[in-house]
């Protein structure tokens, strides 16, 4: 009997093992884990399966495979199989084995392009990016369009590497990563959390906001315009806060309305909030001034010191060079961002945010879940009006939306709920007026260092296939398809037609609208000082206060450091560390 039991257990364990292994090889078609088709040629593609997911790549794969179903790349085989390897492995884990791994094309994030190039990891993909062979006309783009033509000047200067008098490309940007404020538009509409027209003439909170006065008109918002002008709809930001002071007044208004004004994750709050600070600085400084922080060539017009709590601007502009780049620690945008974040994290304002905002066991997914469920869970929790997160949040929270649909019905779906990316308020009324007068009212900060590249040791015969696929996924059709799948933009210039815009969620449309009306700062350059000290200019290090303090939120919250003190010490420390940089 004992022996029989052993046999039964043995068989069961074997079955579990066997089915467990074969279970991995089932072709489910949609998640990218599929069997290798021996009748087709494979192109192996690694996709970082984080917030943006890999559905966009599955969609591109299907179209590409169909398009080349009859092509012969290898003897005895017909057609191509784009084999996707979707993994949530950080780039530091992946990068050590790029040349050893099977994957031939990579889509990833937080990667140092120049480092990879210096390590000999990247194949030359110039043919796919620029020149006659790079024409995307064959794939439906207007003739003469190349991937290079979709890059900004800053991107071209970074990704294009001069070699023997020619520009070579070894990598390309991938998706966009802006950090900002998401607001629950349904809640705002329902509760009237909008500034009303002429609010500046009133003192009382209830007079300054729409609240229950449903008939009142919203203010014109940060762009200072409303309605459709020359085919552009300016109404999406109506009623939203124009200045930082407005924003904190809105927070107080929401709190008074019985809701939680703003929330964020607790586990990595320093990184999220500090990235958000970089967004504030970029928006304040604008493209040219912010880019000085990475290219160190140009005139800094916004430097100063803080005296008695007031920012005193230098009388003259400062010429920035790699030798005196530390002067940029005195940019006004940095001081304003410090003041903003201080108001957000100071303990006396704890009532304005979620109570786990500094709790190490409260993840970004928890914050997203709570943001979505709050106010929709039978009265257990009160509404949450805003969330600090990246543009990827809605796609990342797809499972939560699906669960809510299963629990509460279709009204809880991504398509039926309305969230929007909030245009960042401006530090001062002057800045707001300046922005309203400009066609690029905002400056976004893309912190994510996303990348697409082909590994250096790809087989020679396969390289043309890889380059062709790179071209394919950068056609307008593929870029738009990415946006439709993720509700976020790729880090390229491309138009999205009305029909495709209609396929996006409200949040996705708000992001695209914001992108269209913004300049974008990419925190990199090809300046040797930058390349040799890249980590120094990352979102954490550029705020370093001392050898052991580099995160503003914790320094302000736990140590009570004021914005003024931080700003002053930031300059002192940056000046000191400048001497130790690699040159």
């Amino acid at each position: 009997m004992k022996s029989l039991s052993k046999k039964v257990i043995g068989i069961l364990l074997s079955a579990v093992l066997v089915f467990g292994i074969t279970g991995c090889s089932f072709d489910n078609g949609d998640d990218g884990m599929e069997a290798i088709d021996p009748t087709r040629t494979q192109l192996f593609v690694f996709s970082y399966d984080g917030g943006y997911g890999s559905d966009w790549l599955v969609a591109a794969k299907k179209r590409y495979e169909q398009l080349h179903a009859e092509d012969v790349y290898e003897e005895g085989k017909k057609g191509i199989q784009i084999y996707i390897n979707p993994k949530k492995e950080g780039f530091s884990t992946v990068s050590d084995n790029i040349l050893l791994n099977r994957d031939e094309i990579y889509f990833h994030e937080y990667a140092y392009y120049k480092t990879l190039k210096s390590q000999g990891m990247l194949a030359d993909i110039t043919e796919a990016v620029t020149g006659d062979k790079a024409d995307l006309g064959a794939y439906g783009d207007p003739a003469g369009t190349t991937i290079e033509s979709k890059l900004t000047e800053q991107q071209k200067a970074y990704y294009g590497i001069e070699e023997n008098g020619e520009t070579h490309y070894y990598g390309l940007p991938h998706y966009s990563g802006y950090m900002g404020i998401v607001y629950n538009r349904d809640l705002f509409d329902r509760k009237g959390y909008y500034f009303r027209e002429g609010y500046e003439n009133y003192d009382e909170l209830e007079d300054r906001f729409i609240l229950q006065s449903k008939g009142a008109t919203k203010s014109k918002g940060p762009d200072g315009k409303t309605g459709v002008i020359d085919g552009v709809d300016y109404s999406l930001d109506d009623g939203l806060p124009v200045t930082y002071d407005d924003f904190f007044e809105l927070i107080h208004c929401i709190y008074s309305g019985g809701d939680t004004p703003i929330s964020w994750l607790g586990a990595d709050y320093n990184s999220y909030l500090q990235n958000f600070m970089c967004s504030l600085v970029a928006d304040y400084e604008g493209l040219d001034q912010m880019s000085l922080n990475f290219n160190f060539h140009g005139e800094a017009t916004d430097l100063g010191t803080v005296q008695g709590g007031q920012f005193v601007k230098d009388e003259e502009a400062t010429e920035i060079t790699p030798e005196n780049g530390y002067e940029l620690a005195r940019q006004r945008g940095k001081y304003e961002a410090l003041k903003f974040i201080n108001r957000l994290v100071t303990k006396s304002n704890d009532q304005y945010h979620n109570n786990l905002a500094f709790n190490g066991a409260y993840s970004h997914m928890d914050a997203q879940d709570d943001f979505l469920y709050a106010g929709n869970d039978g009265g257990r929790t009160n509404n949450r009006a805003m969330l600090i997160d990246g543009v990827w949040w809605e796609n990342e929270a797809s499972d939560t939306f699906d669960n809510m649909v299963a629990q509460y019905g279709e009204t809880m779906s991504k398509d039926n709920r309305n969230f929007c990316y909030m245009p960042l308020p401006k530090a001062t009324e002057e800045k707001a007026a300046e922005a309203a007068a400009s066609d690029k009212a905002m400056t976004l900060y893309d912190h994510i260092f996303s990348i697409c590249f082909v590994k250096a040791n790809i087989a020679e015969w396969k390289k043309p296939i890889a380059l062709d696929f790179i071209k394919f996924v950068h056609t307008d059709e593929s870029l738009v398809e990415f946006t439709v799948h993720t509700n976020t933009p790729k880090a390229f210039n491309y138009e999205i037609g009305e029909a495709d815009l209609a396929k996006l969620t409200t949040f996705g449309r708000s992001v695209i609208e914001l992108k269209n009306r913004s300049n974008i700062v990419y925190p990199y350059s090809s300046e040797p000082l930058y390349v040799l000290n890249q980590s120094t200019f990352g979102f954490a290090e550029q705020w370093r206060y001392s050898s052991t303090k580099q995160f503003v939120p914790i320094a302000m919250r736990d140590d009570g450091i004021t914005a003024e003190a931080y700003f002053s010490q930031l300059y002192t420390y940056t000046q000191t560390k400048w001497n130790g940089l690699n040159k």
Partner: protein
Amino acid sequence: MRTKNTQKPMMSGKRKDMIFYISMMAFPVAQFAVFYIVVNGGSFLLSFQNINILTDTTTWTFDSIARMAKMLVTDSGMLTVLKTSLVSYLLLLVIGTPLGLLFSYYIFKKLPLSGAFRVILFLPSIISAIVMVTIFQFFVERAMPEFVRVLFHKNIPGLMENTATRYGTVIFYNIWIGFGTGVLMYANGMSGISQEIIDSAHVDGVTGLREFWSITLPSIFPTISTFIITGVAGIFTSQLNLFSFYGGAAPENLQTFGYYLYMHTQAAASRAEYPDVAALGLLLSCVAIPLTLLVKWAMEKFGPSAD
């Protein structure tokens, strides 16, 4: 008449021993060569290099050494890190070692549930560190405040969120997960004590604490001193699992040299950024090596003898 033995001789015992020895030692020696000599040799050389990844050139310089030496003596942040590193080592030594010894003694004496204790205390050593940290962090950050709320109707922040309890919680965790190896080694050391000695001590009326103090402790002192010496050597490399808890954003008052070095290595964007970290590591080694040798000498000179 002597005839030549044409038969092929069988493999001699000596040769067999040599083959066995080589096959057993090849892997550890290779591992030592690669993971100790090559890695540390590489770090040593990095300390004197300036690397330009744009031109792919390396120049030799004392710049990093000089810069890091200056930082160590002039930067007030380094003083905080030094203090935390030393205090943490002492706390783990003063609290962790006696507790580890007591648990080991309990297990050695086969007192009730000693088997279960052995498994429970060793469990953290076999479960992935990140899993343990996640479970522990959830417990102290989310579960404990909830218990307090339900039982005492009081709202408290998580133990790691609260600046007053943060350091103590981290030290508690490190003591707890440090038990595994210690208890195993001490208990094994105790099992080697001759039963006859213990029996004769019992005949002489020695029991309990006296037995532990006069017989058990001196008998396993070599094991204890090994732990103390390796602990000293690790003062500047122990990072108290801070990276698992906080990632790159550990509060200043928790940071140790181990964490500082780890974070700067992890954050480096390219080879060009390694020399400073390597130089700092080398300078700390210059402190750690004589300190370790001094402690080793003191242990041998003043420690109790098993005789």
